């Protein structure tokens, strides 16, 4: 019974860590807008913790380049299981318009496994919330498996 309560709690209390890889900050502004009273994702129990050791879900925006890929990997490794990754925006999904640039590695999934891709440039807060909710379901399935 306790185990099922813990499983249920994983969906009810997803703590996010938001990391801006190489973003222009467009997606970041939209992500942080979700925390404002207009969209208020805290009603889902979502808290923006700045510390990967406390986080369940890693929200990544922006392209991965040769310098921040190590940081991204490090943050992902420091998150305790179970965890999920959500790539936000065109850049996070695939590198966006910067895909061909010499310093860009590509989307987030070049470095760490991604569970949900949220396209957009920038992605709308509604889309982000939709993606996070989708990610929670995947997260719960992952935790069970």
């Amino acid at each position: 019974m306790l185990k099922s309560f813990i499983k249920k709690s994983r969906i009810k209390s997803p703590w996010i860590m938001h990391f801006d890889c190489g973003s222009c900050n467009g997606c970041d502004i939209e992500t942080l807008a979700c925390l404002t009273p207009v969209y208020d994702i805290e009603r889902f129990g979502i808290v923006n913790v700045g510390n990967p050791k406390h986080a369940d879900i890693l929200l990544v925006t922006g392209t991965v380049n040769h310098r921040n890929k190590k940081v991204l990997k490090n943050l992902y490794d420091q998150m305790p299981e179970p965890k999920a990754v959500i790539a936000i925006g065109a850049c996070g999904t695939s590198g966006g318009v910067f895909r061909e640039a010499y310093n860009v590695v590509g989307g987030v999934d070049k470095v760490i496994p991604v569970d949900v891709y949220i396209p957009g440039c920038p992605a709308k807060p509604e889309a982000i919330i939709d993606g996070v909710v989708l990610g929670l379901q995947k997260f719960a399935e992952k935790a069970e498996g």
Partner: protein
Amino acid sequence: MSNLLVVLVLLPFVAGLACYLLRASFIRSLVVLGTGGILAVASIALMMSGPFTYSPEPVLGMSWDSLITIADFALLLVILFYGFKHNNLLIKLFSVAQMAGLVILELFWVDHTAHVPTFYADQLSLIMVLIISIIGSLICIYAIPYMKEHEEHLHLETTKQPRFFLFLVLFLGAMNGLVLSNNILWLYFFFEITTFCSFILIGHDGTEIAIKNSVRALWMNSAGGVAFVAGMMFIYASTATLDIQALLTSGNTATVGLLVGLAFVAFAGFTKAAQLPFQSWLLGAMVAPTPVSALLHSSTMVKAGVYVVLRFAPAFAGSFVATGVALCGAFTFLACAALAISQSNGKKILAYSTISNLGLIIACAGINTPAAHTAAILLIIFHAVSKALLFLCVGSIEQRIGSRDIEDMRGLYARMPRTAWITITGILTMILPPFGVLLGKWMAIEAASGQMLTVVMLAMGSALTVVYWARWAGSLLDMPGGEKPAPEEQATLMRLPLMTLCLGSVVLSLASPAIYEYMIRPMFVAAPFTVAGGVLSGPMGAFAIYPLFLLLGLGLLYALRVVKKSRGMTYAAPYASGANVEGSNDGSFVGPMNAPVKIQAGNYYLPAFFGEERLTSLANIAAIALIVLMIGGAL
């Protein structure tokens, strides 16, 4: 009885001489070990035999009183000689003043035909004898390998250990004599011997700063000696007796002369206990080798100062002198706790903490209720054990790492795991329940509740102590996870006293209900506390010793079990904003130009709030004002 007294008071003098004259280090070690063991056993036997009164028979046709008088003047002449040798006007003045006072007292005033029982022991004295003999012996035993290493470190050609052990061991006899004395002149004589031992031992290393600090200690303690002589004169003028017990039990209301005398004696106790504004001699005494700091300057000699105040406390109960003593003690407790926060030198932290706790004990003596006296005695016992332990730990650490700064002790667990754990245990016994020091502190605050200024100062001081202890304990563990600490090598004779004192501090705290019931409660007509089921209850509140030990102990064991089970896990690197150096666990991160940057941490010492330069002069002025208040309040 007389045999035990001979053993406890005279044997150390003989043993000290033996250490000085027999030059082989192996024999010296044996003498110290043997003396230590005999003293410990004798003190326990004395405790078991209970309170007593005793006067030694005349020897060689001369009464012991005359011998002591002669020795007294001889000692003062020696001190005067050192005053000339170091060209210090204050020492010369003070020793001459003491001689003059003694001449007047002994030759013109005292009626030598009156019989004064020489020794009297009640529970307080017997407990002090236990502390001196057992803890003192452990420290002397620790000193054997410590001094050997110390002299190797200094590359000395000729060893100075014979002189060192002469005074270290002899000192134990002087302390035993002090706490057992009933004749005030005898108490004064032993008091002066401890002053002299302290002077010699502080200056042991012979460096310029050691000599300077030893001279300062000598003149400050001699000032105390002058006050003591003045006090004796006032007391004798009012009561016409040298008998301390007669003075305490006479029950007549204290006259102005008597109160002034008692205030002077309390002043002498203050200087001996390095209370404000005399704390600088104790801080300067930290240059001495660690066994000196542990023995004289934390667990025994400075306890002689508080013992004197505590012993005479019933005589000034209810007068303004008592309030003055309480205020002086409480203020020292507060001010030195504040000053300790700004220190990073380990021995200075311990010194300030010692002075602070002595102030607490003196405040209890000033409050003068049975509950306060119980608190004072408990604090004396437990502080002596824990503080001696901590000083010995710091000595051990200093010899290994070459520094006594607590910042250099960061992550000590990786290099010296056993000593680090013992130090942490010692620190925790100083600040947390259910250990004895906290029990005493709890009792003191509850006993002081009737005096507003005193209790406010005690409350604030008590909060300050947590800060400087907790950060020291935490920083000892500051190391990357998963590293196996190197096994620690340590001389057996150093390890044994450390482990004994560590175990003692915990076990004695567990035994505190029994200590109260059998050793302290018999002192009082009206018992301040009752013990039932390991809970110490008084009219104001209760401290549940056994239940707390049980529950906290279980919690501790459970936590340890959880830690043991998690030994297999890989330890994560600390969070460093994602820039941890690949594969490293110690928090170093990739910095400018991709170069690794090592983490450096330090404690907050709050110099702007608690800096020594700022606070010391303010505190000294306030303390002098309070002392003047105390002495003037007698009038």
